[in-house]
């Protein structure tokens, strides 16, 4: 049963009462909230996601609710809670859905050390995956959204999960987070893409989320093997340029973009060296998405 099998009233009622158990990749998240923007955005962006079996188990139990103080009379807010703990300060109520997305990322990156976890997008074509790590301002999500709309299977926009057994990339297919100008860029690039209403004045500026392609969600059980690591850099007016990067430098950049590399110790080191061994590594500068898509279509598998 998928989220889209529930009508809005049923979804809202479930979220408000016993909660919704959402299957995202290998994780089950139990969500409770009476906030209307949360149910509306789950209906819109998670329509193709499966509901987990209602056997009481969930990896993460999260809630989004207004704080219990008088502030809600003049400036409504929302609190994210995880297993009845409150890890973050409240945000304006309007930011409830982005807060859910950030909170779900936090749940995974902080608690799922059965994987090596990178702050990176990952997409796959013909069994080979490209990892797009995300230094700040890299234009990673814009490129990710564009590729997902041009035939690449979306495994994840934010968190790359690397299995300890064999180094496979495990899908965590969820909405793509677009910020500021990239929202309009993707609207122009793919008018049929489904985007949530833009939320202004978040810590990341204006934020909107793009619904992941249904085919990518449907293939969330299929892992992929990494073939390329591409460090994207959006630069207004720049020529499209793909330049091979030395593997040792790529390694050092990758550990900067890993959430739990240090925590995994020597195992993390060996997992990362295995990953780099498997991949060709590139720096990629772009300003034109059509040209970027063409470059990715021409990527050749690494010679191993």
């Amino acid at each position, binding site marked *: 049963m998928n989220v889209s099998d529930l009508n809005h009233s049923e979804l809202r009622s479930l979220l408000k009462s016993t909660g919704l158990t959402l299957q995202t990749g290998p994780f089950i998240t139990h969500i409770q909230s009476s906030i209307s923007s949360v149910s509306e955005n789950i209906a819109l962006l998670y329509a193709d996601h499966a509901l987990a079996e209602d056997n009481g188990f969930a990896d993460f139990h999260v809630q989004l609710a207004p704080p219990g103080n008088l502030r809600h009379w003049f400036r409504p807010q929302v609190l994210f809670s995880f297993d009845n703990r409150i890890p973050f300060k409240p945000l304006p109520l309007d930011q409830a859905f982005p807060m859910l997305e950030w909170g779900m990322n936090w749940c995974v990156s902080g608690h799922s050390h059965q994987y090596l976890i990178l702050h990176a997008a990952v997409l796959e074509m013909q069994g080979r995956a490209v990892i797009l790590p995300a230094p700040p301002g890299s234009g990673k999500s814009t490129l990710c959204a564009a590729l997902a709309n041009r035939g690449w299977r979306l495994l994840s926009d934010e968190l790359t999960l690397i299995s300890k057994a064999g180094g496979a990339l495990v899908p965590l297919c969820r909405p793509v987070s677009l910020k500021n100008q990239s929202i309009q860029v993707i609207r122009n690039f793919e008018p049929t893409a489904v985007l949530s209403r833009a939320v202004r004045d978040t810590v990341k500026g204006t934020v909107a989320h793009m619904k992941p392609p249904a085919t990518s969600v449907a293939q969330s059980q299929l892992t992929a093997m990494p073939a390329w690591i591409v460090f994207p850099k959006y630069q207004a007016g720049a020529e499209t340029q793909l330049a091979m990067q*030395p*593997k*040792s*430098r790529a*390694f*050092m950049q990758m*550990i900067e973009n890993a959430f739990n590399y*240090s925590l995994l*110790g*020597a195992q993390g*080191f*060996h997992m990362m*060296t295995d990953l*780099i061994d498997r991949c060709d590594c590139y720096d990629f500068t772009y300003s034109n998405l059509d040209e970027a898509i063409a470059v990715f279509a021409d990527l050749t598998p690494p010679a191993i």
Partner: protein
Amino acid sequence: MWQVAKNASLHFHSWNDEFVVYNSASGDTHLLGMLAAQSVIRLQDAPSNISDLLDTISQLLQIQPDDELKEMIEKTLIDLSCLGIVENITH
């Protein structure tokens, strides 16, 4: 005389002329050039003085064992000792 730091537990990986090394003792990862990496690898085999390292590394890299190389090795060892990878046991 120099040796790998007693507390260090090193894991190496190399691609062409560049090496990464992870020290389990500190939890730090370092990017090393050929000279630094080969110095540590030689010291993993056995403690060594600068003269012996100069001979070994000059042969390995096929360069002249001159004063300039000797200075580079000395400086490299001091840098590596600051990172807790090697230590001076002359005293």
